[in-house]
């Protein structure tokens, strides 16, 4: 077992480190409370949170747009068909934007941050994209499945995902049958979801693909097993023979020692740091292998000395979702919605419900390149100062293996419904300008604070950086604050917040 962090090492900074990693950051008062109540109570609070009462999104109706689909089928002229297709595409896109917005809002306000963080983890792990799935109902169902099993049992979750209509469309399970088993799901199940490349053979893929036949989706977008499409014959899979079905295949996979290692390692890298040594992973895997329960594994990680070590601090680049959600949750900036939010996520390099391919997001340093960093900084200023948010109609295009040729929602729906409908000219140079309210400063500082630049910088630093900032960084920002007239006006304070967000330090946690 990993050695536990001793009681005297639990401080405000360790609490803040945990808040950023196991969630999306917390307010200073919450962090004081966590510091006071100690690590054990805090970890238990994260693992057994209060109920999140966010209602389901309004877009979740099964078999939506059936009429629009019929219109595409029944169109008599090519132009009619193009129009019907476009109407269907736009309606579907609007629903998907709604879903992205719904989840973002949920992460912003949730009393159960670890559940949402793990939902995000499972979404990246069992990646499924709206580019191909084109149904906000299926994607919401899948999102709920991740949430339901977020801290539960990995075997149960994997089986649930094999029957998940979104996944079944994404990896073509829904059209696989006994005569021609489709190998797409069987391959990724082992390569990406459980074992990792090199731990199975091409023959294992072919045999297990036969076991996942007969999986269908009914007209209410629910899973249905169709026995006469199922291949009930004998299969030899990972050296074991029998007339296996899909669930049994998953059981056999999870008996492979490498499976527990694969998942434990991915979780450690997601929460702690990228280069754990093999002994550490073996210890985690030993625990996980017993029953594939996720909660005890996370408890071990979040209680370990290693998790709070210097090597782990500030070692992780915030993913775009965390960048956006944490900015809203801790600093209180207003987060855009609708197509603007989609465009923001797209330019940051991570759109929820639109992973680039079945491998999910690469994460780590790959979040940051010259284009995404430039946009993060531009966005920071715009979020804080509430000046215009400009959407450039950038083509959305996964770099790899886009599973369908569906054009990007941005490529066709030019300026969104939020601006004048007369600008719907699909011109590639048209800009979509949306005004957001500026950061409300009164939530961050009191009137008294405004007379003292140091008090202001201290208060907003505590929110922006969560843990105590590097003294040099603090001093430089204070130097800028001291040049501004007192008492500090709203826009002066907003400038300081933007300056903090436009640093390398703000991009990491």
């Amino acid at each position, binding site marked *: 077992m990993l050695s536990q962090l001793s009681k005297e090492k639990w401080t405000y900074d360790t609490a803040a480190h945990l808040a950023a990693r196991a969630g999306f950051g917390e307010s200073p008062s919450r962090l004081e409370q966590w510091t006071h109540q100690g690590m054990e109570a805090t970890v238990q609070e994260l693992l057994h949170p209060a109920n999140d009462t966010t209602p389901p999104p309004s877009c979740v109706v099964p078999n939506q747009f059936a009429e629009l689909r019929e219109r595409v089928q029944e169109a008599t002229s090519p132009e009619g068909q193009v129009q019907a297709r476009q109407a269907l595409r736009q309606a579907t896109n609007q629903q998907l934007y709604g879903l992205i917005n719904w989840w973002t809002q949920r992460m912003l306000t949730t009393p159960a941050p670890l559940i949402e963080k793990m939902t995000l983890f499972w979404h990246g792990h069992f990646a499924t994209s709206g580019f191909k799935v084109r149904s906000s109902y299926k994607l919401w169902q899948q999102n709920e499945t991740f949430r339901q099993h977020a801290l539960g049992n990995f075997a149960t979750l994997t089986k649930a995902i094999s029957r998940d209509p979104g996944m079944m469309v994404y990896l073509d399970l829904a059209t696989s049958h006994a005569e021609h088993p489709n190998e797409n799901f069987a391959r990724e199940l082992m390569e990406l979801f459980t074992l990792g490349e090199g731990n199975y053979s091409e023959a294992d893929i072919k045999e297990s693909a036969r076991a996942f036949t007969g999986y269908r989706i009914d007209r209410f977008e629910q899973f249905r097993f169709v026995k006469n499409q199922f291949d009930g014959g004998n299969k030899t899979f990972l050296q074991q023979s029998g007339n296996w079905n899909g669930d049994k295949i998953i059981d056999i996979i999870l008996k492979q020692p490498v499976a527990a290692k694969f998942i434990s390692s991915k979780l450690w890298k997601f929460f702690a740091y990228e280069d754990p040594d093999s002994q550490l992973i073996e210890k985690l895997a030993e625990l996980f292998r017993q029953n594939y329960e996720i909660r005890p594994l996370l408890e071990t990680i979040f209680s370990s000395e290693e998790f709070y070590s210097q090597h782990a601090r500030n070692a992780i680049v915030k993913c775009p979702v965390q960048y956006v959600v944490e900015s809203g949750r801790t600093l209180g900036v207003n987060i855009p919605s609708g197509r603007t939010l989609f465009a923001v996520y797209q330019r940051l390099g991570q759109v929820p419900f639109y992973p680039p391919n079945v*491998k999910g997001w690469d994460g780590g340093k790959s979040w940051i390149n010259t284009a995404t960093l430039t946009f993060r900084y531009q966005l920071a200023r715009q979020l804080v100062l509430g000046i215009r948010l400009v959407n450039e109609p950038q083509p959305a295009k996964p770099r790899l293996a886009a599973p369908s040729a569906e054009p990007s929602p941005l490529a066709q729906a030019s300026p969104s419904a939020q601006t004048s409908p007369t600008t719907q000219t699909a011109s590639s140079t048209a800009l979509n300008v949306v005004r957001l309210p500026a950061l409300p400063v009164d939530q961050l500082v009191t009137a008294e604070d405004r007379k003292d630049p140091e008090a202001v910088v201290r208060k907003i630093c505590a929110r922006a950086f969560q843990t105590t900032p590097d003294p040099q960084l603090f001093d430089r920002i204070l130097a800028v604050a001291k040049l501004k007239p007192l008492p500090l006006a709203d826009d002066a304070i907003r400038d300081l917040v933007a300056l903090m967000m436009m640093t390398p330090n703000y991009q990491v946690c």
Partner: protein
Amino acid sequence: MSQEPDLLTRRHFLRTSILGAALSWTVPIFVERTFSLLNAEAAETATQIATGKDHPILVVLQLAGGNDGLNALVPFADDLYYRDRPTINIPRDKVLSLDGYVGFNPRMAPLKNLFDQGKLAVIQGVGYPNPNRSHFRSTEIWQTASDADKYVKTGWIGRYFDNCCAGEDPTVGVTIGSQLPQTFTAEKNTGIAMTPGGRLGFGKEADASEQQVFNELNGITQDHDLTSGASIGSINGPSEPTLSAVEYLQRTALDAQVGTDKIEAILKRTKPEAVYPKTPLGNELSLIARLISGGLPTRVYYASQGGYDTHNAQENSHNNLLGQLADALSAFSSDLTSKGIWDRVLVMTFSEFGRRVAENASKGTDHGTAAPMFICGGTVKPGLYGNHPSLSKLDQGDLIHTVDFRAVYTTVLNRWMKAPASKILGHDFAALSFV
């Protein structure tokens, strides 16, 4: 003397570059040392200093998802093709014949024109031994140019940058979009990713002290105007894994400021001289044409077109993709011809694999192996290269490759880029003659 050009030296170099003398902490001796270091490195590695005016340019175009080569370059004279693809075949009378055995998908008519004009080469049956059918692994193999059973961290173009472009500015490699391909992964200089309209700074309204603190906090300590137009703008830091997250962010901020300002300046004074299709690929190629004509010192551009993973009802979607590809390349060729620079450019397509010979039950095709590559440019030696793989002699239902993709890379590196291919690829492959 054997000091490594690390992050520190690179930043110091930028600080102390000629006009940097205006900044108070300039140390003149350091300028000299940095230049000698640069020169020493250049001498060792045969650095090719790009001026933006006469060096050869490569455009790598990824067809992501696994292009169905058999429905792009159709072996229409072979009955086995029609037997194995009863519902998704390209009818014989629609194929645009190239040599009486193979021909283009009809949606590729603009590429047939380029072929007829002598501006297009087609390499048939390209693949590698022990093919891998995973998108990710096979893409990685193509991007790193490794053997199927070896793992290499750097990309083949990244190694070209390391070997031949040491000390050049980060725009030596430009990818359009917000993700850097593994092809560009390098020890020293990975190139940059760009989206139009991006500039890294604290903002136009910022006062001088804010801008200065912003630069300091981001590890940017040069005045960004200093490097514009200079072809030896920077010495790049060590390989990425050794940088902490914050150091990596500082380095990226520096690259962004050096690179994007230059690009924005070019975009202000250039425009397309052909009508491009309004597709993502059309937009990318149009942008690349402007950057080339504007004299950006870039050796390698990277563009990509996604959507080729056609497991399901592929007929329309695959034909559309090929149509978009052909239309965009055709516009690119006219644009660069009008600009008078088509002779300096070579476009090379690749895809991680082709697809199974037999169609599947969903009227699509599953992951396969060998597929054709298309090479076009003003001075390409046109024609068909390599042999088309046999449709009767298959390996578990898949084509057996006839040309190793690294032979194509060798040709591009040796003959086009004038770079030491065997050093970059780690193996000797016989070059083809399309250049």
